[in-house]
């Protein structure tokens, strides 16, 4: 579905991505884990056309994404839940969701998807007229996910959806990601919370300073000693 080849991105001479290859197959949950500054967000931003790469290619359903404008990607079923939620604070919850469906003309489908989003996030239905800037962090994250779903994406990319949220809410968010996936949405998830991300992922990539260092199924990576040591917080050797 999505295929990235030898992608190089640099910010003012500093290479943030040093040639990465990544593939997302339709129907899978793919996760990209790694520490701060590894280049995870840059990867997503480049896919969305928000950053221009130096070289490499990004193919989506065989289309060259580097030639597409950001604002057209949602029409192809590609959508992003941005890092830090980025809900439109001055707009109501309902307006934020409507903005998500900005490019769609099928009034009936939009209505159905609105109900779907409300069934995933009942709290949003209660807060429909509230300005989204007044929501709590967790609610804003739900709104950001809901907003992206309103475009009826085929590939949903999420940038650190659990960042800064209480553990209980993080659990909720991961449950909902799986729920969304069950409805047939392919997911590319970026996480620092490697443990939770790898648990739900079909395929995982580990990124370190602009390179992909490991690839495997979620389970494989969870049991991989290096990954454990670096990202999962367990010590490699058990304490006697």
């Amino acid at each position, binding site marked *: 579905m999505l295929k990235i080849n030898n992608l190089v991105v640099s910010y003012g001479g500093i290479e943030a991505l040093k040639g990465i290859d990544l593939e997302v197959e339709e129907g899978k949950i793919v996760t990209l884990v790694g520490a701060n500054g590894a280049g995870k967000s840059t990867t997503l931003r480049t896919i969305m056309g928000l950053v221009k790469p130096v070289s490499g290619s990004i193919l989506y359903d065989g289309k060259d994404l580097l030639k597409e404008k950001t604002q057209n990607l*949602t029409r192809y079923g590609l959508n992003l839940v941005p890092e830090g939620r980025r809900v439109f604070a001055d707009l109501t919850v309902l307006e934020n969701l*409507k*903005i998500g469906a*900005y*490019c769609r003309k099928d009034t009936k489908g939009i209505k159905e998807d609105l109900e779907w989003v409300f069934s995933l996030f009942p709290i949003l239905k209660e807060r429909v007229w509230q300005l989204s800037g007044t929501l709590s962090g967790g609610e804003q994250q739900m709104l950001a996910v809901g907003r992206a779903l309103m475009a009826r994406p085929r590939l949903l990319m999420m940038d650190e959806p659990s960042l800064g949220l209480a553990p209980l809410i993080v659990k909720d968010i991961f449950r909902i990601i799986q729920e969304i996936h069950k409805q047939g949405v392919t997911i590319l998830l970026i996480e620092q919370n490697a443990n939770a991300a790898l648990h739900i992922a079909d395929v995982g990539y580990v990124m370190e300073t602009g390179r992909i260092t490991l690839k495997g199924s979620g389970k494989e990576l969870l049991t991989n000693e290096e990954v454990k040591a670096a990202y999962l917080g367990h010590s490699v050797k058990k304490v006697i």
Partner: protein
Amino acid sequence: MTFDLFLQHLSNGISLGSLYALIAIGYTMVYGILRLINFAHGDIFMMATYFAFFGIVTFGIPWYITFPVILVLTALLGMTVEATAYRPLRDAPKISILISAIGASFLLENLAIVLFGGVPKPFPTPDVFTDVVKIGTVSIQKLTFYIPVVTVIFLIGLTYLINKTKVGMAMRAVSKDHETARVMGINVNQIISLTFGIGSTLAAVGGIMWGLKFPQISPLMGVIPGMKCFIAAVIGGIGNIKGAVIGGFILGVGEILLVAFLPDLTGYRDAFAFVLLILILLYKPTGIMGEQIAEKV
């Protein structure tokens, strides 16, 4: 001062305030969406009056056809300024765009001097607007009533557009976050262009009514009203449309009443706006309705 005279001054103040409000909205909308002071806005207002002059005087087109056409022409002019002076600099440092705005302003002023001549021209004033009505002992030009009414009609239209339509929603979204708006599939350039179009249309409405009220037009006539309306926008809280309207009325009514009550200060009429600006910047820099700077992360 008699009560009648006071009413007369007040109605004058309200109609001047309406004009300020219409023009101030253009400043505030552009600031809201681009964080840019569009210095060319006062000159776009000036251009609208010249369009009216040529339509009615040179080509002899009746006013009720000319005026609507001017709204469209002025909107196009505003969008052209945006596309040529601001859009190429979208990712440039703020200061470059600011300089470009000043350049656009000078260009329009000097273009007007070259094309239309520096000598002031009389603005055509159809009788329907300038007839005087007498209410008791107060005699007021019909125009003094029309101006606030027309202003209110356009304000209602604008409020509807911004709050109730899809395009308005997109405008509010873009003014908060260009990048996320793009991800949502909004064509940001188009929305910005539209914002300039709307702001310029309102400037044209203000320009036409300004011309009818003060029927003498010149290439530099947009400078002082432009400054004052910018101040009105700052007083109200730049970026906030309601604030621009409030600021416009405060400035218009304040200016007229100042002159009415303290005739000695007539010469300082224009200074009033600037003193008010200084006071606002000292005591409430975000303006009356100013947006909160603090953001939830």
